[in-house]
Structures are given as C-alpha cells and as structure tokens.
C-alpha cells in the first residue's frame, strides 16, 4: 500500500486540502491531504515517512512547476493549504521529538514594506521542505529579527521586499545582524532584487524563486 503516499503527494501538489474543499474541481468529493495523512499514519507509515515521501515531495513538485512557469501564485497557495491540513497530523510528533525538522528559518517582509504574499509563498515552501518557519509578518524591524534570533540562535534569516524604495532597508538590517551574530546566514528575495544587490548589501544568498531558497537550505544541511 505504498500508493497512499503517492496519492498524498498528488493532492498536496494539486492543492486538495480535504474532502469538502471545492478546489481543484476535478477532484471534487475525493479525499484530500487531511484524510490521506490520517489514513497513512493509521496504516503504520511513520510521521517522518509521510513527511518526506509525500508532503515534502508534493511541495517540491509544485515548487518546480512554479519555477518553470507551469503553476502560479493561486496554485502555490492552494498547495500550501493542503500542506497545512496534512501538517496538523504531523505537528504533534515534532513536539514529541519523533520527527526532526531540518532547522529554523526566521522570515519577515522588511521594515517599511507591507507586501507579504511573496514572503508567505517562500515561507510555505520552506516549511514544506521540512523546516520550522518563524514568520514575523510584514514591516519587520531589526529589533524584531533580533528578538527572534535570541530565541532561535541557530536560525537562518530570510528577508523580502517588493518595492525599490524599501529593499534598501535590507542593507542596514543585514549589517546589524552580521554585527551581533556573524555566523547567521541571511537570505534575501523579492521582485526588485538581484544577485548584485544581495552581494552589495552583504547578504549570503539570493534566489529569484522559492525553489532556489529550499535547494540552498537543503545544501546547507548536507554540507553541515
């Protein structure tokens, strides 16, 4: 009965949260991520197997489609909702310690900016890749990042901006983070950014899409 994990992978990718959700129309009335996750656990798959072999895989597939232009924001958000519906069943095992997350990523839209859909998409992908995400929301100051870093000293920081007038605020925040915690890795992203800008402000990583961010994070785990 391996195919339940395959089914779960598909419903996560397609964004089918539960049986009652009307989206996507062609899967109407069928089991969604909620039901299939519960069933998989009941069948004896370990939470880690369900996470890695179905949920992470499903999110990876939608991330690939997004990068290639085959899927867009609505499909990503629906997939993330399906992921969240499945995670309800997995989360208790994080707390008990039987499933390990890869690490913690603190994320926020930079101070002065309140556009946070882009940041949310990246946060969902990172969470979907098996990381704990601490989402600080929008208009995030250095002080808020610092407070989160004090709680999670080993965390990686991700910052986003949508406007050319606000992306400049990333520079000061990155510098201050590096000053108090030189080892902290800072990732940046957002529509007006570029690799040049990332290098210029002293951040460690830039990706034009969410998939690049999860791949970078996974490479960090492997090299550690």
């Amino acid at each position, binding site marked *: 009965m391996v195919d339940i994990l395959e089914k779960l992978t598909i419903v996560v990718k397609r964004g089918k949260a539960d049986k009652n959700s009307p989206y996507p129309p062609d899967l109407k009335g069928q089991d969604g991520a909620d039901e299939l996750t519960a069933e998989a656990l009941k069948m004896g798959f370990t939470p880690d197997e369900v996470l890695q072999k179905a949920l992470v895989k499903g999110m990876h597939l939608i991330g690939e489609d997004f990068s290639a*232009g*085959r*899927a*867009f*924001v*609505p*499909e990503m*958000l*629906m997939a993330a909702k399906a992921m969240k519906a499945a995670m309800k069943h997995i989360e208790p095992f994080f707390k008990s310690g039987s499933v390990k997350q890869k690490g913690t990523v603190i994320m926020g839209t930079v*101070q*002065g*900016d*309140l*556009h*946070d*859909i882009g940041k*949310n998409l990246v946060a969902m992908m990172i969470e979907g890749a098996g990381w704990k995400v601490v989402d600080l929301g*929008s*208009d995030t100051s250095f002080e808020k990042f610092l407070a989160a870093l004090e709680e999670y000293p080993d965390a990686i920081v991700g910052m986003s901006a*949508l*406007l*050319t*007038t*606000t992306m*400049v*605020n990333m520079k000061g925040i990155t510098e201050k983070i590096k000053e108090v915690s030189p080892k902290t890795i800072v990732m940046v992203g957002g529509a007006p950014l570029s690799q040049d800008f990332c290098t210029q402000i002293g951040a460690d990583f830039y990706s034009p899409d969410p998939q690049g961010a999860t791949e970078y994070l996974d490479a960090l785990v492997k090299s550690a």
Partner: protein
Amino acid sequence: MKDHFTVHLEPLGKKVEVPEGTPLKDVLFSYGVEFPCGGKGICGGCRVKVLKGDVSFDERHRSLLEKLNLDFSWRLACQSYVTGDVTLEIGQFDTFILADSSPFLFKPQEGYGIAFDLGTTTMVTQLVNLKTGKVIGVETAVNPQAQHGADVISRIEYAVLQDGQATLTRLVREKFATMIHRLIRKAGGIAPEKIVVVGNTVMHHLFCGRDLTPMASYPFETPEGGACHFTPEELGLKTDDHTDIEFLPVLGSFVGSDILAGILATGMAESKDPLILVDLGTNGEIVVGNRDRILCASTAAGPAFEGTNIHMGMRATTGAISSVTRSEEAIRVHIIGNEKARGICGSGLIDAIAVFLETGKIDIGGRIKGESGRIDLTPEVFLTQKDIRELQLAKGAVASGIQILRETLGFAPEDIRNVYVSGAFGSFINLENTRRIGLLKYPADKIIKMGNTALLGAKMSLFENGDKIRDILQKTIHLSLETNPDFQDIFAENMIF
C-alpha cells in the same frame, strides 16, 4: 497615390501626418477626445465635422448618422478611417460629454480657465472658454520626469534615495510652463482666470515641491497632500498676475487628485445608487461609494495594462496591437496606425488572453498549453508565459480591490449601478473580454468607459466654487487593502481566469 495623408484638427490647429487607412479614433485619442460609448457608433460623442477634404463612409455609417440626426457633413470618428487629406472640427469640444452622454451643466462665467492633468507618463491640458464651456485649445506632452523612471515608485526612489527631488520638480514645472505658454499664445494671448491641476500623489508632491519621503515606505502617509496654490510668478509663468493656480488635494496614500477629479466627473458623491470608478493605470486606483460614504484604495496592479513588464508590451501608440478577435479558426489583430505590428498594448493583451482562454490555448490557471511557452500573434509579436502571469497579478489586484471595498461598504454586486472605467487605455478595451478574464466582473451594460476622468473632473472644477470638492474630501476614506486579513485569499482567487 500618396500613402500618407494630413489630418488638420480644428479648433486645435493641429496637423498630423498618418498612413492611409488609419482609424480616426487612433488620431483623436491622444488629444483628449473621449469615446463615450466605447466606439460602437451609437452615442455620437466623437462626431467630427468635415470642413475640407473628405472621409469616406459607408451605408452603415450613413444610417448611424441618420439615427443621431446628424447631417452628412458629420462623421463618427470611431467609425472612420483616413482616406485623404482632410480638415476636421472636433464636435465634442463644444460641450463636455459626461459618462451617460449628457452634457455637463455649467454656470457660464467670464474669462478662460485651464484644466491640467499631470500624469506619470503623459501631460494633457485644455483651455476652456468659461462663458461657452468650449474647449478652445489643447496641448499634450510626455512627462519629462520619465527619463528618471517609468512608474511612481521609481520616481520616489529617484527623489528620495538619489536626492533627485529638486530635479524632478524643476523638470515638470518647466514643461508645465511651456505647455501653458503655448496654449495661451495660440489663443491670442488671453489671461486665464484659473488653472486647475490634478495628478496622482507622487505628481502632486513633485509639482508642489513637497517631501516625498513618507511615500517611500509603510504606512505611505501623505501629511502634505493638501491643495497647493501658486502665483504665476512662482511657477515661472508669464501671464497675468491674477491667475490662480491650484493643484487639487490628494485623497490619501497613493490615491491622488486625479481620482478626486474622477469622483467629481462621475457624480458619485451625489448619487443615491452605489457607483464604482476604476482607473486602470500602474496604480490601479479604485473608488466605490455613493452620496453617503466613499472608499478608495490603490492596488499595486503593476504596469501590465500600460505594456510595461510585458515582453513585447508597448503603450497604445502606432504599431501596437490594440485588439485581437477570432472568427472561425482565424485570429485577427488590429494594429494602431495600420502599420506593421511592433508590440502589444493593454487592450490587445486582454483581448488576446480572452481569445486564447476560449480556444483552450490558455487554461484557467493561466498556463499556456504545449511546450513552446509562447503564443504567436503576428510574425513579429508573441506573448510569453510571464506576460500572462503579469496580467494575472494586475487583474487579480484590481478585482480584489473592487471586491474588498464593495464588501466593506456592504454592497452586493447587483447593488452597483455603474462601473466607470478611466485611464489611458480604458477607451480601447473590449468590455466582454474584460469580464471574460475576470478584471471587471460586471455586465457589460453596467460598465461605462469614461476616458480621461481626471481631465474631465479638472475642467468641471473650473466652474466650481470648491463646495463639491470639499464634500468629496469629507465623504472619502482611504483603505489599505493589504491590511485586510483575507487579502491574500481574495487576491489568489481573483488571479484565476
């Protein structure tokens, strides 16, 4: 046989050289002529009188003229093509045509007034005889600030982060003075009683020399967004000292006095039934309300409607594909100026997506089917997958903005009497297709293309004592859409076709 002809436009004294077969609509649009019925040939709002030469017309055109009780010296610009050298008088400048095709009732006054629409991209001004209400002169220009960025955010960036505010203010004031001087000179050196200027918040701050720093970041407040008065001397104008120059106040955040003027033009603040005004530009401003309460918001619609960020996008000028239609299996395109296609403008983009949704080439998620990832429209012009994504963001933002404001006021879609569409390309768009792609989800007979409501409202305010403007300011509240907790879900839903 000549392949180019000269079109003389009266009372403007303008001369334009265009290729044979150019639609008159394309020629007149840039001079602020409105097409109230959207070019269907039923309202007569764009009528022109043939003073010299000829514009050929067919049976259908003849019967449209008969229905409108116009003799055969008239033509409907929206139905006409340039077929030879011709001198035309623009009928519309005799009266202001409002959205419902009724002329604006004004109180005749002594003297002359100037209405000035200061746009991010284009500047247009009209000289009005306040006694007769006639437009007796018009000037248009490209905003010289455009060299420092195409959209308002890049202007703010140049002003605030690159210390360019003084440069931008100087550039726009110099161009303003040049245009006003030309208007006055052509009218024989008259002295205007007043000049009313409208523009978005960034244009307001740059023209008036107000600090743009608060507009650079959240919460995007406008403490200095009030009305600004100038003497001619302050702006370097060589005109009579008594001329009062006023830049009308902004409504809040990115919603400026161009929208204030638009509200005036629609009569929203006096209407019992709720109305919607949508300006389809870079900022995608939205206004919903009636005489009790008005809400406004701007959406980060992005410049897709104006052709920016679209791979082969361009403004609605010569060489742009401005409409796409399908008959049987053939796809037909209309190219402005009847020349070889160089790109596609916003209205063409909307049509193209509507047509390819219908053929199944694009699915409801916006994906182009097949491996090529592009759709060819002509041998030169094609659409990319990213173009469709840009349009989804833009239309999703506008549709979400309308929905959130309407729901905040507690109105159902059926409560809305009319949806007024303004903005540079508003006059060209196909309403059925606008609905098909989910940009404006209202029946076509409720949607009215109003053209440049900013200029119209500015002209109307030349006759006002300020009471109506104060009434609008008092009733209107600015709403920040991103702070709505459901924004993300509403936005995502509205991105789907």
